[in-house]
Structure formats: structure tokens, C-alpha cells
């Protein structure tokens, strides 16, 4: 498996026309690290993730594994929030094989690898089904397999379990934790769920409310896996993160309220 790559964000700013969504973000992510990105809705978490993926132009610079990011690449796998991104005209196996097929990997080898990754996410029994025949959780697993088969050194995940029920989410969190260990890739994981972040992350990055969102705090989660959510350390971290995010959410709401009453000039 490919080892994780480092990610350097250096004075990163992202704007859509006149709207400066993210500004002056500096962050060094170690190879193989699991980073969770938290922050109020609309602050720019997805935007930042899309920038690392290479979908958006940025001010400043982003380096992955030492190479400057200018466009999407196979070294960065992207798991989207919605499994709608699976191709409905391909079976699960064909979806998973997609990247290898583009890369011109021979059929035999492709099949073998696809079998492995389909099994890794526990979908062997559904390999020849079409996405619409699968449940939401199964589709999300398929999406993860489709990304992992390309052996990316970085996996970018935008609320991948956001649309799932609590039980399914818990199962997938455990699987992700295992897969992350097995592959050693670097993961940047956006979530709204503080507990999810506490369960998975090495470090949790809290963003400030936009516009011109930046990094508010970074918490080290120096606890052994598997983690016990009821442990005092976890509860203490939860409180701190909740308060930090709460402040920013409040700011975001105030701003929106103010903007409604008297437009800022």
C-alpha cells in the first residue's frame, strides 16, 4: 500500500469572485495523520477540502507529498458526502475498477484488485449489483472502495457518514479506523459530529465562522485506540471542542442576523 503523504497549507486563501470564503490558513499535516475538520455550517470546510483535492484555485500554496497541488490527481482520493457520485450505469465492481481501467491496468489484475477492495469494505455479496440496488450505507462503502483501490496517499472525506443512521455510521467509523491503519494513508475528514472526530482523529482542527474563515484551534487527541467515549479525557475534550465550535456557530448566526438587518458596507 502507498504510505501517507504530508500536506502543507501555506497562507491558503480561497474566494469565489468577491466572496473571500477562506483566508490565511496555515496547517502542516504529517504523513499518515488522521485530521478532522470541524466548524460551523457554511464556514468553508468543504471549500478547503476541495482546494486540497485540486478542484479549486487558491491563493497561497498547497503541497501534498512535497508536490504543489494544481489539479486533481490520483494521489488524493475524494470521498463525497453523497454516494450519488457513484456511476449508476456501472455495477459496484465496475465502479470500484474505474480508476484502474482509466490507468490501463489489465483486466485480470483489475478484477483481482477490485475483489480485494470490495471485500475490504464488506461488499463482496453485492459486487455485481448496481448502486441503486444498495442501501445508503452500502453505497458509501462502495464509494470508499472506489477511492482506496487507487492507493491514494491522501484521502479527503467530506462528511462521508453524514447521511447515515447512527448504527450504520458507527460500523463504518470502525471500518474506516481499521482501513486507515491497514493502508497508512493520510486522512482529512470533515464532520459536524464532535464524537466522530474524537473517535477517529489524531488532531481536530476547528475553523472560525466565515467569511474569511481560518483556523480557530487545533486539539491533539492523544488517546489510544479504540477510544472510550465515556473516559474523562474524552469528555473533557468534548466539552472544549463543543464550547469552541459553539462560539463560532454563535458568531456565524449573529453575522447572518446582522447582515439581514443592516448590510455591512
Amino acid at each position, binding site marked *: 500500500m502507498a504510505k501517507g503523504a504530508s500536506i502543507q497549507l501555506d497562507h491558503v486563501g480561497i474566494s469565489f469572485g468577491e466572496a473571500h470564503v477562506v483566508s490565511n490558513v496555515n496547517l502542516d499535516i504529517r504523513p499518515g495523520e488522521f485530521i478532522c475538520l470541524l466548524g460551523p455550517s457554511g464556514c468553508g470546510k468543504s471549500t478547503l477540502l*476541495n482546494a486540497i*483535492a*485540486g*478542484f479549486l484555485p487558491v491563493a497561497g500554496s498547497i503541497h501534498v507529498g512535497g508536490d504543489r497541488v494544481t*489539479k*486533481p*490527481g*490520483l494521489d*488524493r*482520493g*475524494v470521498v*463525497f458526502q*453523497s454516494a*450519488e*457520485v457513484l*456511476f*449508476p*450505469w*456501472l455495477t459496484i465492481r465496475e465502479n470500484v475498477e*474505474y*480508476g484502474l481501467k*482509466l*490507468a490501463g491496468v489489465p483486466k485480470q489484475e483489475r478484477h483481482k484488485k477490485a475483489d480485494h477492495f470490495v471485500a475490504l469494505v464488506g461488499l463482496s455479496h453485492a459486487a455485481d449489483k*448496481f448502486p*441503486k440496488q444498495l442501501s445508503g450505507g452500502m453505497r458509501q462503502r462502495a464509494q470508499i472502495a*472506489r*477511492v482506496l483501490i*487507487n492507493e491514494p496517499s491522501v484521502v479527503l472525506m467530506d462528511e462521508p457518514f453524514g447521511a447515515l443512521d447512527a448504527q450504520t455510521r458507527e460500523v463504518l467509523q470502525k471500518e474506516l479506523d481499521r482501513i486507515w491503519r491497514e493502508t497508512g494513508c493520510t486522512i482529512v475528514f470533515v464532520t459536524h459530529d464532535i464524537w466522530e472526530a474524537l473517535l477517529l482523529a489524531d488532531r481536530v482542527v476547528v475553523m472560525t465562522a466565515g467569511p474569511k474563515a481560518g483556523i480557530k484551534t487545533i486539539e491533539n487527541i492523544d488517546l489510544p485506540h479504540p477510544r472510550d467515549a465515556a473516559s474523562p479525557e474524552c469528555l473533557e475534550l468534548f466539552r472544549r471542542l463543543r464550547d469552541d465550535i459553539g462560539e463560532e456557530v454563535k458568531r456565524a448566526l449573529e453575522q447572518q442576523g446582522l447582515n439581514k438587518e443592516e448590510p455591512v458596507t
Partner: protein
Amino acid sequence: MTDATQEAPMKSGLARIMMGPNARKAMIGVLSVVCGVILWHLASLRTSPLFLPSPLTVAQTTMEMVADGSLFVAIGASAWRISAGWAMGVVLGVPLGLLMGRFHVVRLIVDPYIEFFRFIPPIAFVTLAVIWFGPGEFTKIVLIFYTTVFIVTLNTIAGVSAVNPLRLQAARSMGATKLSEMTTVIFPSAVPFMITGARIAMGNSFLTVVSAEIVSAQTGLGAMIWTARNFGRTDWVFVGIIALGILGYLFDRAFRLATQKWFKRFLF
């Protein structure tokens, strides 16, 4: 499970064919047609055959035209023109639509022509087509081609714009180039739109072929309907109309079966 086992004996063999819900629907359809023919017959008793020939007369004429082969010649001529022109229109319309939908420059170049010509019905070009291409087969095929290419192109463009942008992003992050993006994401996404376009175009092709054959043809169902006037044979008109209806139905049916068979996975 229990339902199936309980009803299994009743739903076997002939009973299923006779009493299945599909059979019942078909029965209603057949009955409706029979009633229509009876009404037609009754109406024809009160008028002259020149105004409204009876179903029996039409059936008789049909048999005669089948016997001397003239009906098949006419159907064959029209069917060939439609198939050839339509197929050419689809084959050109699809890539044109993909290019226009994908590359802004192509769109800007072709758009004024599309916007202008789309409101001009093919029938308006019949005379011009005869002047330019003569009275031969080619003229008719060109007109059907014209009919088809617009509809298919416009629908394909709509399909390209309807592509889920996240799917494109996903493809790009898995190593898709501009070309593979086109073949592996945009084309499959647009297939349902192309099929809709091709199907509408098929219907319109029937319109065009009859008009074109009325103006300039010795063969074909349109020509048959038109020459009937000179001989005062209203029954020929009826044979022609019924043949058109059935031919259209068969074409549509065949098209649907073919798309179900070959493009099933794209019809989500």
C-alpha cells in the same frame, strides 16, 4: 412467499394467460378497437364510399394491394427513407450535441444556426430540397435527416448540461482526462436524453416523410395517399393511413425494445 405458493395452482398454464392483468388490459384494448371499427362501419353505411369507405372495402383493398405487392413497396419505400435519414441524424446529432454541450466555442459557433433553424419545420424545405437534390431518394432522406438532427442535438446538449458536476469531479480525482471524462461520464449520463430525442425524432420523421412523398415521390405511403386523390380512391387513403399508424407503432416498439436491450444500464 405464502402468496406465491397459494396462488401458484390457480395462476398456472392457460388460466394465467387468460386471466393475468396484462391479458385483461390487452382485452380492453382489443374490445375498444372492435367497437371503433363497428362505429366506422355504421357511419360508412350512411355515406358514399368516396366520402367514407367501409372497413370491409378497406380490408378488401388491403388484400388486393398485398396480393399485387404494391402495399409492401409503398411501406418499404417509406420505411427505408425514415430509417436511413433518422439513423444519419442520430449518428451526427449525438456527437454534435456532445461537442456543443462540452465546448463553449463550438456552442457559440453553432448556436445562432440552431436557434434560427429550429423553428423552421422540415416541410418548409421540401421545395428547396427538390430543387437542390432533385426528385430522387436522397432528397427525402436529407429531409428526414434534417428533422432528426436538430431534435437529437438539442436533447444531447440538455443531457450534457444535466451531468452531475460531482460525478465529473469524482472522475477527475480518479485520473480522468478530458477525453475519458467525455466517454466515461458525460456520454453515459446523457444517454437517456439522447434516447428521448431519438424517439421524438422518429415520430417527427413520419410527419416529414409523408409531406415529402406527397410533394415529390412516385413511391411510398405519402405518394400512395396523394395519388389516391387522382383516382377517387378514398379506400387507398385509408389503407395508407392505417399502414402509417401500424408502421409507426412497430418502429416505436422496436426502438423501445432495442434501447431496453442495449442501453438498459443507462436508463436509471
